[in-house]
């Protein structure tokens, strides 16, 4: 039987990049082997520890992309080069790359699929944001199809509106997605309608990260260990997918209440 030591190991912040007014990418000094879709736990001593996608990688370095929400993410965004954070992971199961795929992301969910796009640059990438100010990684992915809710840049629609006609034409065999869960649910339903496989990266309140505490459950699955990426077969069995999530206490609430009650 394996017995691994799971503890945060400090990593130096090397560079902090402004992606958008409330979104920043932190480059950390850390060698790591990971699959796109896996995540790491980031620790700020005496404050808290939260899951983040590995949003980019370079030799000896990984990056995380942070959106300002609560005390933890605010402190993380204030980090300066030379400061350190704890890192453990990577955890969970990532995306399974297959031919004829497309990627669709919303908001900071783009951070989760960015390394997948880099690994498979031929896959089209559809991205939705509320407004032009929240569009990130434009230089990194020049071929990204950008949609905004208010039309301040790109197409004025949801990215699912751009995906739909191409699914109808049978262009894709698999769709990878990460973003607000309501969007992912819409993507999944669209895929089901057209008989296309969907792989979605879910987010739930996380504690241990390695399948012991049962906090991040969705259906009978553990987002930390069985996920965070689930395929259509698993998603079909999850009543809670696109509907409810659990607060830190374990209380089951609507996705809206969950988003409002998040403390990250």
């Amino acid at each position, binding site marked *: *039987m*394996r*017995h*691994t*030591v*799971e*503890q*945060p*190991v*400090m990593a130096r912040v090397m560079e902090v990049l402004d992606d958008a007014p409330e979104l920043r990418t932190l480059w950390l000094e850390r060698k790591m082997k990971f699959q796109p879709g896996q995540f790491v*736990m980031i*620790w700020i*001593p*005496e*404050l*808290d*520890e*939260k899951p983040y996608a590995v949003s980019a990688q370079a030799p000896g370095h990984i990056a995380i992309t942070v959106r300002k929400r609560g005390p933890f993410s605010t402190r993380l965004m204030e980090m300066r080069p030379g400061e*350190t954070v*704890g890192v453990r992971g990577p955890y969970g199961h990532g995306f399974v790359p297959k031919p004829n795929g497309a990627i669709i992301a919303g908001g900071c969910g783009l951070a989760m699929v960015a390394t997948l796009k880099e690994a498979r640059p031929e896959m089209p990438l559809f991205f939705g944001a509320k407004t032009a100010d929240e569009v990130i990684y434009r230089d990194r992915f020049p071929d990204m199809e950008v949609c905004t809710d208010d039309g301040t840049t790109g197409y004025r629609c949801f990215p699912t509106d751009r995906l739909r006609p191409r699914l109808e034409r049978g262009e894709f065999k698999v769709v990878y997605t990460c973003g607000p869960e309501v969007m992912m649910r819409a993507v999944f339903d669209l895929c089901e309608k057209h008989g296309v496989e969907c792989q979605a990266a879910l987010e739930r309140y*996380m*504690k*241990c990260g*390695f*399948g*012991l*505490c*049962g*906090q991040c*459950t969705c*259906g*009978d699955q*553990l987002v930390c260990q069985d996920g965070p990426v689930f395929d259509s077969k698993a998603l079909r069995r999850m009543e809670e997918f696109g509907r409810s999530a*659990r*607060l*830190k*206490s*374990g*209380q*089951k609430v609507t996705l809206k209440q969950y988003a409002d009650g998040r403390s990250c």
Partner: protein
Amino acid sequence: MADLSVSLCGIKLANPTVMASGILGTTRLLLRRAAASGAGAVTMKSVSLLSRGGHPNPTILSFDAGMINAVGYSNPGLEETLKEFADLSDIPAPLFASVVGQNADEFSRVAERITKLPFAAIELPLSCPHTPGYGTLAGQSTPEATFEITAAVRKVTDKPIFVKVSPNVPAIGEVASAAEKGGASAITAVNSMGPGMLINIEARRPMLAFKMGGVTGAALRPVAVRCVYDIYKTVKIPIIGTGGVSCGAHAIEMMMAGATAVGVGSAVFDGGMGVFAQIAREMEDWMDRNGVEKVEELIGAAHR
């Protein structure tokens, strides 16, 4: 074929493994999955009167010889819990509830509602080492408090009561005796030990957000075996031996010390949910090799 079934307070378990409280027991569906993967019985995550967010992260970490945790009894509270576990009919193993409180009155207020759910028994952890207001930090692990709380809950339920005891007491037999006198039907021995602490030497800070936490896993096992051995000599009621069991040999050792059933917790970290079936298979193999037909013959074998 060896017979792995045991009777615990009249509850029939297909094998002696019991998923310990605090491991995966947050929802009905996770209890079902753990039961379906081979656990002899499963325990829910402890419920308190009001909802609790628990401690910030990190709450659970591992070290070379086990695990350390300070989760802090996060749970959605009594009312939500009554909804979550209202129907347990599709779960293929006996289920145990776990109730916590800040005093005897709170224990009985929660227990008298929880007893109406289809759980086979109610466990009372009087021994958590890392949650202010509860367990050892509230003095619940003394013989006096153990008697008082057990007796209070005895008044509100006819179901078997398991009292979960701390290994951090000088005379654990006295605590177990107090539980027995208070009306306990079994002793769960033991809860996590400590609290212990892990410090990140680069950050120069304790790693758990609560700084200290209960120690479980391999490091706890010899302590747990000794506690079970001591308790077996002191009380007549059965024991659920819990602490660091991760393979069939460990489970057999625990039963020889005096356990009727064997709690499994940290081993899920190492072996996943399949660990219950794995332990049962290994027990069966050992029994076949050693000509033991019924696993119940092993209970207390080290005392004879």
